[in-house]
């Protein structure tokens, strides 16, 4: 086999391998991870237990699925620049609680959601997975942006009907920080998180 033929054979194997990966997503790939998180969430939403029990169970599922630190940094943007490590850590902690709660509460708006899954698009260590929540009268597009980390694929943003939740938070942070200080924002988040915890 000539050098050129060997190169061609290797290239073919690589292309074939990629094609296989696209056609049949890996068991621990972005689509599979997303599907697993959503199916677990669905089982919780449809299952027995009161709202509080469902909230707690969903939080546990989503903590593993959502990369809230990446989400928080995306949402905070430049506002984290120049903050002390303590301030940053506090912001990340509060954001994690708030974001998970927001997502979970929105999920709980659907009584018995049915999910359909689109295709996954992998580019390097990032991917997007398209899904839809299907209700009797409508469909809601929910796209997940994922990043490959040491612990596997984790969601770094969620787009509901093409609107990014992280960007949504960012707009709200921008508005809040235009009127008050970062400390005030932390205080506001603290109140929201504590209030939410008290309210269940």
């Amino acid at each position: 086999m000539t050098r050129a033929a060997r190169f061609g054979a290797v290239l073919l194997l690589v292309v074939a391998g990629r094609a296989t990966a696209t056609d049949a997503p890996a068991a621990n790939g972005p689509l599979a991870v997303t599907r697993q998180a959503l199916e677990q969430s669905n089982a919780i939403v449809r299952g027995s237990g009161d709202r509080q029990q469902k909230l707690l169970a969903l939080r546990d599922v989503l903590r593993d699925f959502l990369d809230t630190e990446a989400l928080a940094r995306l949402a905070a943007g430049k506002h984290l620049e120049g903050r002390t490590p303590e301030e940053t850590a506090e912001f990340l902690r509060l954001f994690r609680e708030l974001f998970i709660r927001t997502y979970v509460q929105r999920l709980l708006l659907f009584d018995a959601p049915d999910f359909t899954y689109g295709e996954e698009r992998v580019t390097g260590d990032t991917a997007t997975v398209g899904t839809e929540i299907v209700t009797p009268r409508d469909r809601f597009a929910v796209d997940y942006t994922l990043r490959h980390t040491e612990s596997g694929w984790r969601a770094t943003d969620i787009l509901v009907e093409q609107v990014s939740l992280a960007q949504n938070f960012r707009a709200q942070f921008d508005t809040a920080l235009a009127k008050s200080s970062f400390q005030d924002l932390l205080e506001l988040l603290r109140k929201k998180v504590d209030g939410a915890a008290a309210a269940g």
Partner: protein
Amino acid sequence: MLAVFRKDLRIFVRDRWAMLFAILVPVLVVTIIAEALFHSDSGPRLLVPVVNEDGGPVASTFMKLLGEHAEVREVSRDEAENLVRDANKAAAAIVFPPRLSKQYLQGRSTEIELLTDPAAGSDLEAIKVLLLLMDKDAAALADPFSEEKITLRERNLTGNRLSITAFEQNVPGFSLMFVLMAVIFGTAMSMHDERDWGTLPRLLVAPGGFTRLLLGKFGARFVVGLVQMVCLFLWGHWMFRVSLGSSPWAFLVLALAVVFATVAAGMLVAGLAGTREQTLPLGLTFVMTFSALGGLWWPQSIQPAWMSRLSPAFFTSWAMQGLNDLVLRDRGMEAMTLPVSVLLAHGMAALALGFLLFRQRHSAR
């Protein structure tokens, strides 16, 4: 002094009906007011028709939240408009627009349409408060950071104005009560005055007979009552900017019917009262009861269910319905057909009964 004291007491005790009414009136009035304002029975729940053009989870959640405080009924837009504008069974209807759920989940604000009947006053305010509560509860459920996801756009289905003043809500009812007082007492007492003054026997032997005498007195009181009512409402219009509606003719027709029924009620009181002394407590019973149950003091929607069921039997309910249609809903002559017809029917019945009783009681004396 002791002799005068004993004489007055003897006169009072001698007229047992007057004594009974004097005790009965405060008991009756206090009971009605207490029942209406502080009753434990919460009455029928506030009806909130909902037009669900969204059909998504957010509209469903909103409806569930509203349903905790009101009777939510999902209807078409036509049905909702009919319930608010024509049947006046609901103070407002809520329209959840298409894409409400999508926009809400996107974190975007959505405009919710509120089809209102401003004449419903406190019920409309109650629905607006419910919407605020709903928004707050939904925000707490769905988005703990941003709390203003809905804005309201009101559309008045029953007139041109989005709000009405407190004067417009209260002045017509109280004006009507004073017409009631003046006309019922005036009519009832004037009938007995003739007897007390000794002019009744002379009038009875005058050409025309008893019925003409009664009709003559009725006519005089009718004119006085009409002037009183028109003056009171003109004063309210001038002083408090209370609307008299878009049609002066409709107002006049309603005023004629209201005064007719009121004078007839005065005739009935005159017929029921055996003496002039009895007309005072009996007339007071009529005025207070008819004012309370007719919705002259407060909106009928706050009354307990049993009181609301009784209300249509009192002509004042129909008078207030007509006045509300004119003053608060800017309606014209077409809206007067029902209240005016019922007022005339009430008036005829009361007049016939009053004439009959008075004739039986006094023509032989």
